[in-house]
């Protein structure tokens, strides 16, 4: 486990928990980051508020890598514009591409995401595209220069878990890039299952931000993700669809009372 690192765009991380920073009161963010043990935090870019308003940058530890997203983008051009501005703020080359045309289910536009990935990878960004789990798109994203693939488990913020499990598994089997399950992961058990399947990391936000005790839930997620990773590396045991296999010896039973066999 000591040498088990996640590599993204030449950077290595020992944590496999990417934490979203949305929906928290600012005073809870630091505790969430620390309890999560997260080394990568996502952020969004919006019009700045003037004046001495509370600033999220004051609550994120300096050694954490920032992963800005392109939320608000409805097409590749808007995502590229947001990515360039995000890089200009001055915290590195990571960008999570998020392009949505659908406002009800917030599903990503895979085609535009491929287009934005191609442009930004050429400009030296470490591109982490959020996508609807489709094998062909995942291959296109790889060919376009993505550093990872981020398929959704369920609609953003729904806490519904690994609804798209079988399709994420196909991407894991076929595309040789870190697969990071993003969106919809609402409980530690779901994060653990994603890791057991072979996810390189899990990204979560709402599941923690909407918990009764935010720091405690951040820690629960951390443990679940670590457990899932260990289980994956250990190689989970096989499943028997029909029948059973005793865990106990099937010989040496006591004789029935009264001598009846």
């Amino acid at each position: 486990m000591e040498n088990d690192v996640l590599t993204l765009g030449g950077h290595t991380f020992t944590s496999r928990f990417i934490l979203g920073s949305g929906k928290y009161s600012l005073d809870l963010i630091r505790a969430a980051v620390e309890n999560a043990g997260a080394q990568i935090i996502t952020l969004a870019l919006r019009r700045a508020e003037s004046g001495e308003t509370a600033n999220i940058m004051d609550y994120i530890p300096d050694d954490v890598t920032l992963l800005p997203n392109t939320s608000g983008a409805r097409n590749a051009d808007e995502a590229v514009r947001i990515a360039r501005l995000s890089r200009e703020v001055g915290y590195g080359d990571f960008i999570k591409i998020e392009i949505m045309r659908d406002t009800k289910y917030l599903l990503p536009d895979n085609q535009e995401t491929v287009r934005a990935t191609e442009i930004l990878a050429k400009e030296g960004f470490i591109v982490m595209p959020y996508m609807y789990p489709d094998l062909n798109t995942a291959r296109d994203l790889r060919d376009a220069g993505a550093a990872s693939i981020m398929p959704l488990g369920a609609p953003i913020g729904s806490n519904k878990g690994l609804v798209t499990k079988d399709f994420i598994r196909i991407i894991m089997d076929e595309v040789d890039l870190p697969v990071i399950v993003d969106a919809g992961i609402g409980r530690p058990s779901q994060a653990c299952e994603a890791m057991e399947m072979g996810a390189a990391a899990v990204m979560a936000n709402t599941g923690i931000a909407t918990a009764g005790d935010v720091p405690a839930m951040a820690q629960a997620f951390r443990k679940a993700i670590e457990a899932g990773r260990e289980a994956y590396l250990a190689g989970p045991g096989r499943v028997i669809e029909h029948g059973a296999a005793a865990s106990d010896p099937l010989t040496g039973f006591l004789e029935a009372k009264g001598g009846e066999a």
Partner: protein
Amino acid sequence: MAKINGRAVPEADGRSLADYVKEQAYRLNNIAVERNGEIVSKTDYEATILQPEDVLEIVQFVGGG
């Protein structure tokens, strides 16, 4: 007059971007500026004089997934 983040800002005309940003108490470590569709590098804020026809977007990081 210059339009900044969607709002007309008469007092910005003729000022340097560096002055405007300082006056508005924007945090330099958490902003990026786009002027008429082009990113303004932080080292150019001083030399950038805001013009009446300018359209600026000043952005910052906020919490997000």
